[in-house]
């Protein structure tokens, strides 16, 4: 693996609630080079909170701690909010799940992309527009000039998600965090969006963290997979070796999905063991 881009050691995210502390992430460690890493788990496993903590988007009431949380040698937990903001959207970018909610509904797609760009780089309006259009082209939007002037509600989910990818890539980030980037899309559109993401990540040599609940999808897309359960990493495995996964949770997740051509009635279900969470 090439040089380490992101180093996460013993990351913890804790939420204070009325009934006491909720430990959403409990000591997650991994490192990432310029590769594609998948984080998989069920809802509540802490996978999204891990991504958000790296991005610096943890809600203010929650507490983030780690022995080490470093991006390209920068200690993310000790820098000022201002420095963090300069990184966010510039060198670290994040794609969210549903373009319907994550794009600004009262701003045209083009303006949103230009805004991202001009927040981080000193470029003229004309130059920013040119780059935004080129980016829309890169995510295979056929008529970039038309889409540039559309509002998010005027485009389909797949198109919206491409626009989001364009917005995130326009600053040329080194690390991209994609949190369920295709779960809100139709299966056929999913593959198109993944193909675009895959191509751009490979061309630009970015590091990618792909967060999803779909173990099979992640394993077909990523080089390495981190499996999370109850806020902890239960297994780290090469995607190509997933079939030899050791942990019963990983195996259970792989098995419980219906597959075309593999008749199993009833479907195997996960027999959750309390010790997995320990």
């Amino acid at each position, binding site marked *: 693996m090439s040089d380490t881009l992101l180093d996460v050691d013993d990351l913890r995210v804790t939420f204070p609630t009325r009934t006491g502390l909720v430990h959403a992430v409990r000591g997650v460690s991994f490192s990432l080079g310029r590769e594609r890493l998948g984080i998989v788990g069920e809802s509540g496993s802490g996978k999204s909170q891990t991504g958000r903590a790296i991005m610096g988007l943890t809600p203010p009431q929650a507490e983030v701690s780690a022995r080490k949380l470093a991006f390209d040698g920068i200690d993310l937990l000790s820098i000022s909010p201002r420095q963090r903001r300069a990184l966010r959207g510039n060198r670290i970018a994040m794609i969210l799940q549903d373009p319907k909610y994550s794009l600004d509904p009262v701003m045209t797609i083009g303006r949103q992309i230009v805004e991202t760009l001009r927040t981080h780089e000193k470029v003229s309006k004309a130059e920013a527009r040119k780059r935004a259009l080129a980016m829309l082209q890169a995510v295979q939007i056929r008529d970039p000039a038309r889409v540039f002037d559309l509002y998010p509600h005027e485009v389909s989910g797949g198109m919206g998600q491409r626009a989001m990818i364009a917005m995130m890539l326009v600053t040329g980030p080194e690390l991209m965090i994609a949190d369920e980037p295709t779960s809100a899309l139709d299966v056929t559109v*999913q593959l198109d969006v993944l193909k675009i993401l*895959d191509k751009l990540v490979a061309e630009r040599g970015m590091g990618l963290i792909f967060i999803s*609940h779909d173990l099979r*999808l992640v394993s077909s897309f990523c080089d390495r997979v981190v499996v999370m359960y109850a806020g902890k990493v239960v297994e780290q495995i090469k995607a190509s070796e997933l079939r030899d996964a050791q942990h019963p949770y990983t195996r259970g997740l792989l098995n419980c999905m219906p597959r075309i051509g593999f008749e199993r009635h009833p*479907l195997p279900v996960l027999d959750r063991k309390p010790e997995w969470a320990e």
Partner: protein
Amino acid sequence: MTASITVEGLEVVFDRFRALKGVSLDVREGESYGLVGESGSGKSTLLRTITGLAPVASGTITVNGKTLGKTRDKAFYRDVQMVFQDPYGSLHPRQTLDRLLQEPLAIHGIADGEKRIERALDEVGLGKGFRFRYAHQLSGGQRQRVAIARALILEPSVLLLDEPTSALDASVQAEVLNLLEEVRRRRKLTFLMVSHDLAIITHMCERLMVMQNGEAVETLTASQLIGHRVSEDYTRNLLRASEGFVRV
């Protein structure tokens, strides 16, 4: 075998948008029938039209031998029940499960509520202990079990399922699918199930219809689909997509 649901030349129009363009369908009694397609294909509209949640522009719907008119009678709603996609939206947040399950019984004037509620909760694997809880105290999978219990409590013969597991985690999805199969076997129910996931439909259904843009693309048996014996390109695309991402 007799037909349980027959739909002929069904048209549904919202303002000027034709959501269903002359769809015909025929589900046999005791059969499990699937509807697949992308969003906007009209698969959910078809279900909603059968229950009377969307207006019929033209065409006929026959359920258990009775052709449906503009309004449906009480007996229809006792015989046909629906489970919706999102268990977070389909259960009243301020009612206990007891109250939720009481509602259909009260509407239909059924007396032995006590027993039925206990039995319904047992049947979906929740147990009596859940009876006086609120939906917000339950997980997504548990909520969907409640929605299934509510549908079953009137002892219907037809269950309409609109993406019953797409809001759930994969492992919980397996549990709910198993539960649905089990109640179907036990009660000899007819299923009409909508999903965007071909794998789920082939797992659950004997026959299926692929839909696109408000029209039927083709009708297949599950084994035809498994053997890739499909004739339309659209279905082939769906099949390819369901195999996951392949790097070229």
